[in-house]
């Protein structure tokens, strides 16, 4: 009855495939097409410096999108990443400004992000509300808290030792890129190799079956949101390191970019499906697009048009390479 899946050659082939899935290949093709188009249109687009630039500019979105991917896999969504980042940013910045050492301030900022995520997770997993609407509510709530805390003013004067952490480079690669690369590797390992990763896929893929199998549903979901919140906070650290100021309005519309990156990378908003590699590629696609359009000095209305069309095109290319599921 069953198709033989145990031929020795397929073994190796499958191993490769499972490391880099067909779906991810689709996303990669999308990226290559976009890069190729810009390479033709924009001289210097493929210079090493510009490529590093693209990576650096994608790093913040990639960081958020990784957390978003985990949440999406668990069957949820996190619209509150931007305000979460803003809260962490202004908190960390005020601590830094009053002279708290950078490591402590960073730890507090990340904890703030985790706390925001825990709140979302609690509302979703324990109280049982819909993720979209919970995080729509906290989208306003967290933003309001950040604005009230700062009175709407940016926090300036972030010390240089903190900024140096995020503005340096390691072997010529900008630190944020290295940090997000590490985060991506950890996220990949977590998803592929740990029980938690498996639980995430199970909870998003078939919650009832997961429950019956004894998967700790609530804990898994809460952890996903907490990670998303923490990564939003990490993205905030990178950003305030770069800008030297923490604004309470920072992170506006970040959620849409993060969701777009995850979706372009193959995450299904129905849950149970998503890829770390795909998400990273998705974030780079969006980053490359922004970079290329700026370099081409495309007028603002047409940039907006291109943004929309490229999101659609990326999904179409993906759809065509992969076939209907």
């Amino acid at each position, binding site marked *: 009855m069953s198709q033989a899946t145990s031929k020795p050659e397929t073994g190796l082939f499958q191993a490769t495939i499972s490391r880099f899935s067909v779906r991810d290949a689709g996303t990669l093709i999308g990226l290559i097409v976009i890069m190729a188009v810009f390479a033709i249109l924009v001289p210097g687009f493929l210079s090493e410096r510009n490529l590093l*630039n693209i990576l650096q500019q994608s790093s913040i979105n990639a960081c958020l999108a990784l957390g978003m991917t985990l949440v999406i896999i668990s069957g949820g969504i996190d619209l509150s990443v931007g305000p979460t980042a803003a809260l962490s940013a202004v908190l960390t910045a005020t601590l830094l400004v009053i002279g708290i050492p950078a490591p402590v301030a960073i730890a507090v900022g990340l904890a703030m992000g985790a706390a925001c995520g825990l709140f979302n997770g609690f509302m979703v997993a324990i109280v049982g509300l819909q993720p979209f609407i919970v995080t729509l509510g906290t989208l306003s709530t967290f933003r309001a808290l950040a604005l009230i805390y700062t009175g*709407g003013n940016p926090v300036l004067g972030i010390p240089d030792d903190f900024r140096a952490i995020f503005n340096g480079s390691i072997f010529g690669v900008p630190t944020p890129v290295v940090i997000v690369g590490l985060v991506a590797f950890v996220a990949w390992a977590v998803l592929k190799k740990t029980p938690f990763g498996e639980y995430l896929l199970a909870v998003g893929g078939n919650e009832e079956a997961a429950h019956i199998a004894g998967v700790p549903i609530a804990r898994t979901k809460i952890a996903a949101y907490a990670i998303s919140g923490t990564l939003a906070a990490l993205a905030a650290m990178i950003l305030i390191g770069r*800008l030297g*100021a923490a604004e309470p309005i*920072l992170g506006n519309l970040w959620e849409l970019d993060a969701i777009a990156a995850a979706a372009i990378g193959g995450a299904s908003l129905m849950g149970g499906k998503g890829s770390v590699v795909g998400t990273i590629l998705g974030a780079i696609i969006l980053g490359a697009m*922004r970079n290329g359009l*700026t370099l081409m*000095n495309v007028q*603002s*209305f047409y940039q907006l048009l291109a943004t929309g069309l490229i999101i659609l095109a990326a999904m179409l290319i993906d759809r065509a390479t992969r076939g209907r599921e």
Partner: protein
Amino acid sequence: QGLAPLNSDTEADRLDWSELDSTLGALPTLPEGLRAGGVSKTLTNEYWRSLGEGYQKFADANGVNLAYQAAQSEGDQLGQLTIAEGMVTQGYNVLLLSPQTDANLQPVLEQAAAAGIPVVNVNDAVIPGAEHYVGNVQRDNGVRVANWFIENYPEGGKVAVIEGQPGVFAAVQRTDGFTATIEASGKFEVVASVPGNWDRQLSYDAATNILNQHPDLIGFYANNDGMALGIVEAVKAANLKDQVAVFGTDGISDAYASIRAGDLTGTVDSFPVLTGEVAMEVALRLVGGQDLPRVVATPQALITADNVDRYSGEGVDVRAVLLEDATK
């Protein structure tokens, strides 16, 4: 009403703020318990908070109650409309409106007219049917920065603009003023004019990209100060601080601090506190039954390291300085 659609930049029926007293005399005596309502775009930008301060200052000085509200975010047009309509319903004696867009508070104008409440349109977006407008010339913001470049770089060079949200009045006017003026000089090239959506991070990224492609760039003009401060960081990160001049718009306190620190080259300050005071004065004069010209122009000035101490700091009376400027 047979009023032609208002263009605040070209309206002939205008008065400079400094001539208010001389033209109209002292503020008329006002009835007790006046309530004024101010509705602005958003409080997430310091500019609008400062404007409110100005309202408050002038209102307090004249025993007027002020309610100052703003939409929850920039672009929340219907929310702002709800707020303004609420004020009409509650019977405020005069309204000071800074609309999100040219059109979104139009119904308030009509409702207020029906209720006999005078309305002053304060700055930024211009309600075409507005009978009274207080504010500066948006286009002039860009023009001033362009003129600075023309004066300081006789050889010309490459410049770039980071714009605000696509389609927003202030962004369009400021960009247009800058670009038209500097291109008319013939020596400058605007190599990029891309949106930063009023967002520091986007502006930082855009500036980085532009600097990468045009390492010989000599200057940026940003449609507001928040974006300009993002650009400053990008310029510093690219180690081009000595070569690239960065200008913002609005004159928020952070911009002043940055100018003092030698980071930001300059900003076009439109003196929101003073603008608020003037607007409130105009509003109260209207309540007091005076006839006013349709547009009352408020000051603006290009602030750079050279003149920053003249406009801010210990013991500086901005009002006096600006009056001095106005009479020059």
